[in-house]
């Protein structure tokens, strides 16, 4: 997905102080990084802050990137993932109460998710419907454990291969596959419960 030579050259220029090269890197990767952050953190505001943090960290450590050790996109994703883990740990305390609330309602009747699908009886046009589904899936994704969530995001949303994901997460490929499958299955269970409620 990336021309190794081109990216290596871009990084070299950037390390040498070429601002245009840095801008090109930012333009190329901001969408990808923002999306990983958004799907993992759940909120657009957090995603914007986190993506900015990722680029600040990238900018400071760009000289340490070694193209012989792996693709730039893997390096960038690793930085992003590490920052997300830090962010998760930092905000863990806040979320403990949140997830307890969510768990309770999930056991009762999965209300928080089903509430997001409004008025199924009067079908709106396809685009609105697809947006609603997207929001529901996004909300369900936020309920997965961080290990499963990150694996699923990197595979199904970012299209990284197993080897790349294994590098980013620093776990064996077998573990990566297992987490992806468990993540997908868990997501399906959450959504099935939701839609059974609604329909």
């Amino acid at each position, binding site marked *: 997905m990336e021309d190794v030579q081109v990216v290596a050259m871009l990084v070299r220029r950037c390390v040498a102080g070429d*601002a*245009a090269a*840095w*801008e090109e890197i930012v333009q190329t990767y901001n969408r990808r990084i923002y999306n990983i952050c958004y799907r993992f953190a759940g909120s657009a505001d957090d995603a*914007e802050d986190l993506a*900015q943090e990722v680029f600040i960290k990238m900018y400071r450590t760009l000289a340490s990137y070694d193209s012989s050790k792996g693709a730039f996109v893997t390096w960038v994703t690793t930085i992003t993932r590490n920052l997300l883990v830090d962010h998760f740990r930092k905000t863990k305390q806040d979320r403990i109460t949140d997830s307890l609330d969510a768990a309770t309602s999930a056991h009762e009747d999965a209300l928080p998710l089903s509430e997001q699908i409004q008025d199924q009886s009067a079908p709106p046009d396809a685009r609105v419907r697809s947006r609603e589904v997207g929001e529901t899936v996004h909300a369900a994704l936020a309920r997965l454990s961080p290990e499963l969530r990150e694996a699923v995001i990197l595979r199904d*949303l970012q299209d990284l291969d197993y080897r790349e994901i294994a590098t980013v997460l620093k776990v064996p490929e077998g573990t990566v596959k297992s987490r992806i499958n468990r993540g*997908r*299955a868990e*997501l399906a269970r959450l959504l099935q419960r939701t839609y059974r409620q609604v329909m």
Partner: protein
Amino acid sequence: MPDKTSNGVQCHEFDTLLSDALDGVLTGVQLDAFHAHTRTCSVCGPLFAEVQAGRNWLKDLTEVEPPASLVTNILASTTGVDTQRLRVNVSASQGASSFSPSWWERAQAHISGAIQPIWGTVRQPRFAMSFGMAFFSLSVALSVLGVKPADLRSISLRPAAIRHTYYNTQARVVRYYENIRFVYEVESRVRELKRNVVPAEAAPAGEKKDHKNDTTQQPEQKQDRNYSQNDTHLILACAPLGPSVFDSLNHDPLNQDSLNLDQRDQDPLNQDLPVVSVTTYRRFV
């Protein structure tokens, strides 16, 4: 997961086969065996259905558009560039403006583009702090050496003049050092004289307590409060516990006496020993 074999596929290898099957990597006999296992195994069958459903759900998550300000903010916080050029880029991409930058704005963007790698680093808080501290230290050092900003204007850069300035500064530093040494020497002499006079009067053992009023002991008491948790502190800390506290407090002066007795016991021979050495010794007891 029960580890049973059905149709030549074991449950524990199902995970790997599952990924391969969904990725379309599994073919031929392997694929047939996989599907046969899925149909017959009560654990792997439902799992396959769920994994497949989950993957389909995730396909509904299309990429979202990052906020238009993201790139601008990133560049501003990394290279320190918040140029008109970028603002124009953003507004142009939003179709909000047909404004084109003047030559002055383009020049500004160009210049800041040239200095931004350095400026970006300097702008980071930790570097800014370091630079600030370095500047502060330098200005303190210069003012100690008697260098005034006004002097800098009249500085001559001829080699001879630089040599002259160097020797002048060196002489000033030496003089400053000598002055400080002189003050310290006078001080220590005075202290020595005092010590030689006072113990001669305080020679009788009973009056040794007067040392308590000697100002040279004050630092010692202060050190005790800071470095050790002595009895007095413990008693005060548990003050509300009972009436015994007040007894203990009453004993406080006695404690002080015993301290002084200790001191006397430790240096009965040489009363000219500096008090400080006694302090140090007692703290280790």
